[in-house]
């Protein structure tokens, strides 16, 4: 009985995590492409302002896309791309692929050869990469982390592996193609060949970028850039938070809604609303207790259009004034807490609750990061290390980076 309960819970959690993951990914993509409406999304509105007023902080869309692709966690993008290349582009029957003519036999032998070629290329690449990494100027965990990120190691390897997989699949099913589908097969092979050529270029890029890491000065420069970029992200984030708060307050002001006042709330608090009369005293298990604690989630975005709809609805239904609670992006809030409610009764109808539930978007997948960025933590530990070893030059260069952070702080006044 208990086991099945645990099982259900695990499945439930897995589903929840998966859906949160998908939701987050979709959100990132839609943010990236700017699909959402600026009038409804507070986050987008704030971002829009930052984009136009703090150009230095804003990354170009291509840079954002690149960063998105090189993120280790976004392997699925590459997978989709390769699958698309191999199996969808041949259907499109474009001239780009068609201008090369390949006979069925040639195509079959190419597939076999490519698979073998790739195995050789991959092993060679990995050996060389391994050798290069071995001769890294600074051998420390952070250096590897930065190296993998800076050299685009993950996307290149993902791309290569996906391509091999596709070739293996093609090679395995090559005899299943009939004369009617042979054109499709040969176009797939050509598309794969293009991918193979691309891999060769990418491997070149990979070597080139890894080579930089044999020079300690270059590594330090990259560290510095990393620190500055992280700091810029924090600045952007805090600007986003403060702007979101500002916009939210202005929005409420425009709609003539006053702020929730604790004393006023206390004054209108209706005892009959509470369940104290029917209070039932019984022992509580730990699970029950945990269930009672409201789950606090980080606010990701606030949908102003929905809130406006709520206000209109509420004004139509009741004569009661509305009061709003001050919230901003990044705040933690319980899901059943409402950011706006009538002043006296303090209760919303089911329909209103539904609208309000959808008006605040939570970031359920938040990970409890330390308040410092990884690069800052690295610099902090490095400085103490350098002081310990009396390396004045190292101290000086690390402190230069700190000064740059102070400069940034003063520049953006955050």
């Amino acid at each position, binding site marked *: 009985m208990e086991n099945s309960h645990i099982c259900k819970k695990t499945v439930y959690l897995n589903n929840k995590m998966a859906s949160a993951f998908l939701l987050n990914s979709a959100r990132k993509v839609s943010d990236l492409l700017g699909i959402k409406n600026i009038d409804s999304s507070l986050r987008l509105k704030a971002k829009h302002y930052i984009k136009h007023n703090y150009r230095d902080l804003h990354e170009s869309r291509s840079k954002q896309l690149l960063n998105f692709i090189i993120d280790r966690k976004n392997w699925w993008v590459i997978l989709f791309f390769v699958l698309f290349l191999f199996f969808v582009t041949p259907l499109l029957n474009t001239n780009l692929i068609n201008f090369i003519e390949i006979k069925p036999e040639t195509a079959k032998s190419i597939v076999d050869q490519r698979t073998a070629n790739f195995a050789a290329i991959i092993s060679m690449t990995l050996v060389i990469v391994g050798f290069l990494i071995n001769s890294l100027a600074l051998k420390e965990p952070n250096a590897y982390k930065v190296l993998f990120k800076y050299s685009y190691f993950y996307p290149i390897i993902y791309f290569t592996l996906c391509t091999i997989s596709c070739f293996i699949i093609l090679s395995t099913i090559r005899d299943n193609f009939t004369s009617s589908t042979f054109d499709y097969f040969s176009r797939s092979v050509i598309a794969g060949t293009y991918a193979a050529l691309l891999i060769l270029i990418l491997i070149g890029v990979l070597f080139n970028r890894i080579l930089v890491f044999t020079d300690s000065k270059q590594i330090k420069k990259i560290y510095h850039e990393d620190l500055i970029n992280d700091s810029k992200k*924090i600045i952007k984030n805090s600007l986003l938070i403060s702007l979101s708060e500002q916009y939210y307050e202005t929005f409420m002001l425009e709609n003539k809604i006053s702020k929730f006042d604790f004393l006023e709330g206390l004054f209108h608090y209706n005892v009959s609303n509470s369940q104290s009369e029917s209070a039932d005293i019984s022992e509580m298990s730990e699970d029950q207790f945990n269930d009672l604690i409201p789950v606090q989630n980080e606010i990701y975005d606030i949908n102003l259009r929905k809130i406006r709809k709520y206000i209109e609805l509420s004004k139509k239904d009741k004569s009661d004034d509305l009061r709003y609670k001050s919230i901003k992006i*990044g705040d933690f809030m319980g899901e059943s807490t409402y950011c706006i409610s009538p002043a006296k009764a303090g209760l919303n109808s089911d329909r209103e609750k539904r609208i309000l539930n959808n008006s605040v978007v939570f970031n359920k997948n938040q990970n409890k990061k330390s*308040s*410092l*960025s990884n690069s800052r933590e690295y610099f902090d530990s490095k400085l103490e290390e350098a*002081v*310990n070893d009396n390396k004045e030059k190292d101290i000086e260069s690390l402190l230069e980076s*700190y000064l740059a*952070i102070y400069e940034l702080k003063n520049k953006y006044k*955050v």
Partner: protein
Amino acid sequence: MNSSNITQDIDIVISRSIKKAIANNSIESFRVLSRFINKVLYMNWGQVDTRDFESYILFPASYYINSISQQNSNHNFRNLNNECAKYAISTLKDILSFASYKKISDSEIELQNRYYYIAFRGISQLLYYIIRNKDIENLEIFFEEFRPLFNEFAENRHTYRYNLSILELSNANGQNSNQINSLKKKYETDNKQFIYYKHALTGAKYWVYFLFSEEAIDEKSADEFIGKINIGNYSSEEILKDLIFFQNNAFHYFYWDEWDFMERPNGVIYHPPVPYNWLTFGFVANSIRENNFFLRIDYLDFEDINNAQYLSNKVIEYKEYFKNNFKYWSKILKVGSLMELSERLDKIISQLIQLKREVINAEEKIIANASLNQNKVNDFKQRVIDKWRERANIHKLFTDLSAVSFTNDETAIEGGIKQNSFIQNAKGVFTDNTESIANLGLADVGHAIAKREEESFFYLLSRKKVDYKNNDIISLLEGGVILLKDRSFSPSLIFVPYQYRFQESLLNNLKFKSKKQEAGWTHTNQVFGYYDNLPLYAMPSEFLSSKIIIADFSKAFSLVIHSNESLPDNILSINVRKLSDTEATDRLHNEVERWTYTEDGVTLSDDDAIIKIKNSVLIELKLPVSFQLLDENAFVIGLIEHE
């Protein structure tokens, strides 16, 4: 990324690194780190967010004391220690020099002053550690380094004072007052750094005196420190003003509340020395040592004087301490004999007591010369009339019973009924600079005149002979009625002494009918019942004690009012006035002792005493009425004999 502060905790890392560099005795690492601190300080000066500057400004003091503690355990640290002291002093000096050359707009002055305060907090902290370490050598370096800057401050001050005195000299008619005020204001805001500098040094100097009193510093070092910490030449008023400022702001000012001279003991409730106490102690000790305390009270604001009242008592307290510990203190205070110490202390005390006296005068001077606010006077008059009406029972009785006659002849009323009150210290109530008069009960003079009116009526009756006596109230009442009826008058009312309201023999008598059950009756009503259908008036008059009066009222008495109008709304005339100079002088001559000796044992000069007298007010009330006996047979007076 959850952090909203990108520089978060960098200061902690730097602090740890500096400690490490000092522990490693690594001068080079220390230099690099301290240069970084300088750069951050320069970079952050003037930023809206002061937090970074606030934390970095304390670094010099902290690495100085850090290196000292290392040196105390290991002498190899001497060079590093020197380096730390040198850097600490120069960092603080450089940031101030940097600020003084930085051009700022008027709108930034306030922020700039905030930075100056923070910077001097760092300096004050360094001085605290230097003193704690008895590091006279570095104190000398400190003053050497800061001299040009301090001289610049002094020069600014000199220019300011010069300009101010020029303006003041040609200000006989007050034509420059605005200019003087704006100059003062501008100097105060533009030269806040100078004030902070003075305060930081004063605090450090007073701290040394305190340390010496706690035996936490030896005589030689204390003497040297006090000698070296040269604040500059200031008038006693300025020093006193600073002390008053400390009194009001000292608690967290310059982190003085954290200054301590001993390790905090474990397991005992303990708090570091209270800044206000040690600052006052330091002030007294320094005033004795310098022997130049001379207050010019005119230079102090009223508020300052008000705030300094407590001081003389405090100094009197310390006088005992210094006398008891004369030997211990003689060198520090630079006094040769106990007598000299007493003399110096007495001089300070007498001036501070003077201040206490001045407290009264500064306020009184304004009031003494002020004229009365007519609105307040009118308001007061209305209150007096209301009060009079409230209690004018006898007057009301006469009007109710139509026993009133009017006359144009003033002599007929024999001067009327007067009530003149000389009320000391009450003038302030009627001048512009004080608040409501409602709470002071002055309007009760209205009650007093009503009482006087009543008394004058009963006084008139008390002089008439008693017609008959008895020890029983009922017999008296019965007898009186018969007597009056025998004289062919019909009695219309009876006056009984107030206490007879509760006389059981009367209340239980069958002929008595209480009025208490009637609607509208209250305790203030004089008629408390009827005897044989005659109203019984209980009058609280001294002249009516033990007497009852039965009268055919309208035939017996009349109230003569001097007025042309038949039924005036108000006949009470009120005059509120201030005392003229001659009146004040007369009063002084009549009562010299009353006006010239104060509770504190101070003798006032004649001028001051006159000011005190002129703070009084005269309230003259007059009722133009007199009571007349129309027919002495129309009433009988019975005396209650007590057994």
